[in-house]
């Protein structure tokens, strides 16, 4: 299907990058399953809908979503920053103009597979956020809630985040929807870490089951910096996550972790692309999924070690549990290596709950239901455990528990 048809109701922003992006979309079609990086994801259920740009006003109470101890709070409604609902003491500016000079930022990584949605985001976004982080003494913490009010709302959000030299920052993003209508969230992140900066981005995707979510996180790292991204996906009818990180300097560290749960006809697709363009770097991916009902889970991890990028350690792990006989898992951990002094490995396992473990628990008087819940929780726990603080772990489990039957984090 053509992109032109899909965006026919949308008004482009008139920024330079917006017009450029719009021009690039001219004559383009959406990718199909014949495209290598869309092999397992059909976009029909997204593209058959009509979407409109909507103004931002909400009636939902966000109190149950705020993580109490985070001082800085932002609310973005249908892609538009809401100053009334936000409070913070960080260096944040909004408006398309604020990011006009910053996007695409450092020459963008082109993984080639998610370009259409990034371009739609850039061409039709109504607002943008520029977040500069420079706290070198302690951690800056920020929570952003993205609300989609639906009735066919398209929320294009453009976020530019820069962590300057030696800065430490943690950003928690929640994606929620009001009510139960059809909405599309198309979020685009542009991350940059200067030398020795440490940036964490935690995404909690919990929209209603009629929503669609495509997210592109594009990061470029300078030497000795660290980027960590978590995707916790439990909502929306179709989720496609792209995390593309390029290590531009020596000694970079990249962590991309994900936990996904699907039921009914949900489709969760995680694509990770790590470009080791410099020496002495590390990357680590851990993705765990539980698929129930007729849900489909996809993991496609791609690690490239460029020529002359010596002494790289890269690891990918993808584990999946299928709970129903109609669920599907597609896993594709790829390695492309052009340097020799490397240690790269990946593992992928798919199976069901261990019958022996279930029996063990039942033999000790634990009901089948609870035993299953315990096993699923402990399976997913590994991803939660990679989060930095206990409060954060508890918070994430609490948020996910609304959708997945999880035991409390202990």
């Amino acid at each position, binding site marked *: 299907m053509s992109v032109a048809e899909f965006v026919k109701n949308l008004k482009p922003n008139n920024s330079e990058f917006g017009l450029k992006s719009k021009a690039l979309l001219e004559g383009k079609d959406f990718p199909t399953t014949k495209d290598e990086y869309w092999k397992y994801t059909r976009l029909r259920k997204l593209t058959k809908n009509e979407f409109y740009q909507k103004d931002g006003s909400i009636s939902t109470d966000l109190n149950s979503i705020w993580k109490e101890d985070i001082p800085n709070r932002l609310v973005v409604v249908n892609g538009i920053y809401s100053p009334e609902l936000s409070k913070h003491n960080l260096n944040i500016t909004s408006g398309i103009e604020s990011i006009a000079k910053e996007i695409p930022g450092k020459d963008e990584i082109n993984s080639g597979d998610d370009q259409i949605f990034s371009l739609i985001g850039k061409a039709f976004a109504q607002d943008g956020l520029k977040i500069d982080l420079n706290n070198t003494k302690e951690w800056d913490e920020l929570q952003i809630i993205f609300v989609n009010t639906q009735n066919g709302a398209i929320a294009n959000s453009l976020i530019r985040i820069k962590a300057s030299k030696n800065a430490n920052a943690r950003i928690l993003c929640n994606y929620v929807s009001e009510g139960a209508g059809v909405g599309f969230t198309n979020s685009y992140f542009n991350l940059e870490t200067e030398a020795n900066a440490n940036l964490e981005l935690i995404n909690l995707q919990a929209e209603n089951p009629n929503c669609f979510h495509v997210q592109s996180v594009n990061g470029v790292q300078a030497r000795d910096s660290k980027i960590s991204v978590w995707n916790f996906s439990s909502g929306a009818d179709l989720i496609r996550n792209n995390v593309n990180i390029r290590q531009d300097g020596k000694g970079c560290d990249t962590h991309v972790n994900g936990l996904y749960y699907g039921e009914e006809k949900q489709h969760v697709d995680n694509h990770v692309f790590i470009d080791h363009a410099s020496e002495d770097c590390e990357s680590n991916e851990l993705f765990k999924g539980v698929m129930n009902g007729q849900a489909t889970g996809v993991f496609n991890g791609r690690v490239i070690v460029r020529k002359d990028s010596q002494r790289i350690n890269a690891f990918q792990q993808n584990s999946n549990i*299928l709970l*129903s*006989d*109609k669920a599907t898992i597609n896993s*594709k951990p790829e390695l492309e290596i052009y*340097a020799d002094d490397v240690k790269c490995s990946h593992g992928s396992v*798919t199976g069901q709950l261990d019958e022996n473990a279930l029996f063990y628990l039942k033999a000790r008087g634990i009901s089948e239901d609870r035993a299953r819940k315990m096993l699923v929780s402990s399976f997913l726990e590994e991803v939660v455990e990679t989060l930095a603080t206990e409060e954060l772990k508890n918070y994430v489990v609490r948020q996910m528990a609304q959708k997945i039957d999880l035991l409390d984090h202990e």
Partner: protein
Amino acid sequence: MADYTENELAKDLENKEYEYGFTTNIESEKIPNGLNEDIIRLISSKKNEPDWLLEFRLKSFKMWEQMEEPDWAHVKYQKPDFQGISYYAAPKKQKYESWDDVDPEMKETMSKLGISLEEQKRLTGVAVDFVMDSVSVATSFKEKLSELGIIFCSFSEAVQEHPDLVKKYLGTVVPQSDNFYAALNSAVFSDGSFCYIPKGVKCPMELSTYFRINEAGTGQFERTLLIADENAYVSYLEGCTAPQRDENQLHAAVVELISLDGAEIKYSTVQNWFPGDKEGKGGVFNFVTKRGICHKRAKISWTQVETGSAVTWKYPSCILKGDDSVGEFYSVAVTNNHQMADTGTKMIHLGKNTKSTIISKGISAGKSQNSYRGLVKIDRKADNARNFTQCDSLLMTDRCGAHTFPYIECENPTAQLEHEATTSKIGEDQIFYCLQRGIDEEKAIGLIVNGYCKDVLNKLPMEFAVEAQKLLTISLEGSVG
């Protein structure tokens, strides 16, 4: 050679010339270059084929015309000019009354390859069906096999003498429309091997075919069809060397295996076609479609040692259709200089309680690119399927590449799938360990490479294991002790 370093090893590898590069001067009959319906009719009439086979060829040709050459593989090469190839070449003198009548030059070729038929006849239990440019010229042990009801002959012979079997199974595992090169092969295949093992028969010897590309500018389009009837067993060996040529030679074979209820096929390949010189000039294009189907309780085991060819594009696969069937794939792929290999397997689990094992070992040297690409697919109905995949890559220089592209698709919750892959170079600590024990660096590298490939080499039949080790030694000459 105490101070033999990896850099020197790399240099040695680069300078190593292709050992089996020679040309046999046998007059051969060639048809004009190019590909069209008339050529196909000509090939078919030259081989005196029945109408149904001509129809099969023409239908494939029509499909091929509609197709585009695939480019998804992780290889780069100058696409062949399909109109610049002669699609049929056969030594002019086709029939020999006895072994003595065989052209002495051809005999010499065979002895250079180390497979003198006389030697083979007397000393080993291997029946050799030697294919020199598309037409089988000598077949041994045939009578002995026919006593057991085993049919082992060239494909053209099978078309004449066992048309029912050929008609029944041809194209059932690799349909004509399967892919670009399979369609091309189906249209123009020249000859190949045919093998049928009757019910309950355990083939007493290892069957073997040596393929060899000889005539300059001739693409080889082999067609192999191997059928193991219920509860039969056969071990089949395929090995290849080719003379040194400057122009690229195209090889697009199709191999179909049918393993009926309770049968077992073990298919082993040693491939050492001319890989091109160290500038990457010349070399064979090896675009092969190999696939087997397993019925109930059947087993197919692919073992391959790939050291040759400029470009390899090969995925020996198993369709595990019957319940309790088993598929195996063991592979060692060595690439050197400018070689490019994109190889792996497909395990398609359709039946219940099906099992598959994939062990792939890649070694990249020089400026080569070596990719593993494999699919494990568990169908909705394939309860209790089990797969274990291990694909390791070893990098010998800093200019080569090793890549892994696994596809794991699971639609059944009772499946248990494991996949693991590692990529690394030979560890300094491993070499240090050997040096400490008085093993010099050259031998140490040899030891490590051999150990690294052991899981696969162990799966080769005895007769082949020796040759395979020899090939590995040649391919990594100067390093393997």
